[in-house]
């Protein structure tokens, strides 16, 4: 190799300026190792370059220095670990794995917490809904029963086989009213209380049918029950009058006439 020519091509200046490709660079480095003249020449070039650039220096603001050393101080412990242990990649892989695991754990916990919350909320919603639907079902049953009752009552009231007897208040209870629906063929008796006062706990009303001048017991009932028909005891045929007296709870075999509340005669249509 012609060293003089090599030098005068300017390749060492380009090398010092960092302008060469990877390939050219390693060629120059090989030559430098082999030829001391090249090393001497390079040293002169580098020195001139350094001096020139030192003359062209621009002072950066002080804050840059502070930032650099703050960053260096922050990474110092980490840098030491890396310097001491050669398997650099293992550490960063390990770090990465640890960081990834922690991240996944955090995300999972968060999701678990969130889903647990949602699950609990859903469960309580479900409990409420079940209770609500039970309530609705109960109400439906009650309404249904009342409807059935009303339909049955209507069948009695509408049925021409039943005779309606209006029982008006006696001087004992001038405002009281009650109706009896009586089917002479089937002997059934129904009572509809329109307006009768509530009795003391130990007393009950007792319905009587007067058949051939004699009172026949047709069953007891409590006052204050409005709406709907009460099924009473069947009686024989030929009743001329119905009346209600107040008797001790459970009723008596014969009426206490002084307590008569309402009474009405059977009007045969």
């Amino acid at each position, binding site marked *: 190799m012609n060293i003089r020519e090599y030098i005068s091509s300017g390749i060492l200046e380009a090398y010092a300026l960092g*302008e060469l490709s990877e390939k050219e660079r390693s060629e120059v480095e090989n030559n430098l190792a082999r030829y001391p003249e090249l090393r001497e020449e390079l040293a002169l070039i580098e020195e001139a370059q*350094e001096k020139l650039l*030192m*003359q062209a*220096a621009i002072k950066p603001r002080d804050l840059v220095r502070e930032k650099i050393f703050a960053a260096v101080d922050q990474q110092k412990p980490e*840098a030491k670990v890396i310097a001491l242990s050669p398997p650099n990649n293992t550490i960063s892989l390990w770090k990465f794995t640890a960081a990834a695991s922690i991240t996944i754990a955090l995300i999972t916990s968060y999701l678990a917490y969130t889903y647990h919350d949602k699950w609990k909320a859903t469960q309580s919603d479900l409990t409420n809904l079940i209770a609500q639907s039970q309530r609705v079902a109960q109400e439906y049953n009650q309404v249904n029963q009342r409807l059935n009752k009303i339909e049955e009552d209507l069948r009695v009231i509408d049925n021409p086989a039943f005779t309606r007897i209006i029982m008006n208040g006696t001087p004992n209870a001038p405002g009281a009213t009650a109706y009896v629906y009586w089917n002479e063929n089937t002997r059934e008796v129904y009572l509809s209380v329109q307006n009768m006062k509530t009795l003391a706990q130990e007393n009950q009303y007792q319905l009587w049918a007067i058949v051939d001048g004699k009172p026949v017991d047709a069953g007891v009932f409590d006052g204050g029950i409005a709406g709907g028909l009460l099924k009473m005891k069947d009686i024989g045929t030929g009743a001329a009058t119905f009346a209600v007296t107040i008797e001790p709870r459970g009723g008596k075999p014969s009426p206490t006439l002084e307590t008569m509340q309402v009474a009405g005669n059977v009007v045969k249509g």
Partner: protein
Amino acid sequence: MVKRLQAKDRSALAYLYDHYAGALYGVIFRILKKEAIAEEVLQDVFLKIWDRFDQYDPSKGKLFTWLLNIARNQAIDKTRSREISQERKTSDIENVVSRIENEDYIEQRIEGIGVKDILKDLPEEQRFVVEYLYLKGYTQSELAEEFNIPLGTVKTRLRLAMQQLRTTLNVT
């Protein structure tokens, strides 16, 4: 010095900074022309030096050369990653004006004797090459391309200029 840096001696880095930061910042600033970005790159350069000091091989060149190469490459990479490159390459009037303003600004902050003084004895064509490569942040191939000079000629002109400057700069 090199051993202290390899041992991650903070005070050695401080010395390196106090000694070379200005020269390196001069190089970086001339390439990037923007203070904030140049400072950011200078910071990156010193952190890189600190992290990779074990890669420095004294048999391949002086410490300053190694530092210069890192700084220059980092700054050039930055021009490619930003819109700066475009501003630098286009030569419309606005950019020429802003470049001139920047140069005035640089000159105000230069320490020591003016570089222009050092270069004043060089033949025009050599001074041009030194200015563009060292003071305007061009690479050799950019210079060759933009001014239509063969790359080999750029190299030999720089060679001649650097030889001449040894006298001016007292390199023996």
